[in-house]
């Protein structure tokens, strides 16, 4: 089955979503990621969605779920790279992704993760 790769970099897990996900693939990512967090004791998850041309309510919910589950497993999630058109559409759709930390790009996202870990 098709899978979205999860890379480990030190204390962090990195995910770059590069395909237009169907719902089951999004669900699989959620499961894989929580499993990897508990296996690796990662303290941060960075999800790059700069290639995503659309985030609908299902994908939005998947991102919220990942952030919530990660938090319970002692990891922070940052979603980076959302395209402006996607952001405009999401808010109009009625989703503001509560509880999700975002950053404009990977560098800013890593910085956010590092500073939140140093703050502990």
């Amino acid at each position, binding site marked *: 089955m098709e899978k979205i790769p999860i890379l480990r970099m030190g204390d962090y897990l990195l995910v770059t979503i590069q395909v*237009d*996900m*169907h*719902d*089951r693939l999004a669900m699989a990512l959620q499961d894989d990621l929580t499993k990897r967090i508990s296996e690796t004791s990662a303290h941060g998850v960075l999800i790059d969605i700069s290639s995503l*041309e*659309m*985030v*609908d*309510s*299902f994908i*939005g*919910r998947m991102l919220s779920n990942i952030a919530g589950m990660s938090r319970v497993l002692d990891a922070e999630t940052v979603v980076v790279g959302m*395209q*402006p*058109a*996607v952001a*405009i*559409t*999401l808010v*109009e*759709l*009625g*989703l503001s992704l509560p509880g999700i930390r975002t950053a404009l790009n990977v560098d800013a996202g890593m910085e956010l993760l590092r500073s939140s870990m140093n703050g502990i």
Partner: protein
Amino acid sequence: MVTVSTETIALTSEPDVVAVRRRVREVSAKLGFSLVDQTKVVTAASELARNTLIYGGGGTMHMETLNGPRVGLKLIFEDNGPGIPNIELALRDGYTTGTGLGLGLGGAKRLANEFSVDSRVGEGTKVMITRWK
């Protein structure tokens, strides 16, 4: 109003929802929609295609490109599923009979310029949206 082209895509499995997104993206881009408008109509199509699949048990999306005096894209989602007993309730944000967020129908309405839903219990549901360029 002149209908320039029409096509129909079957919605019977999850990859079909992705196919709908891709096709609506292509056609709206070809019509000259702005990137934001493309994204809005693609997102609305994704929500409605998923509803057709999950709640309607599968169906079709019919797409019409419109021209004269205005350029637009009309999408019709049709299924022969159980129907929606209370449309007003189904349009309310946060209401769902499934496992979703309950934003699909109301969200699609907000993302479209025109919206109509015709549903008969036991017979099926037809949702129509139009987005103008």
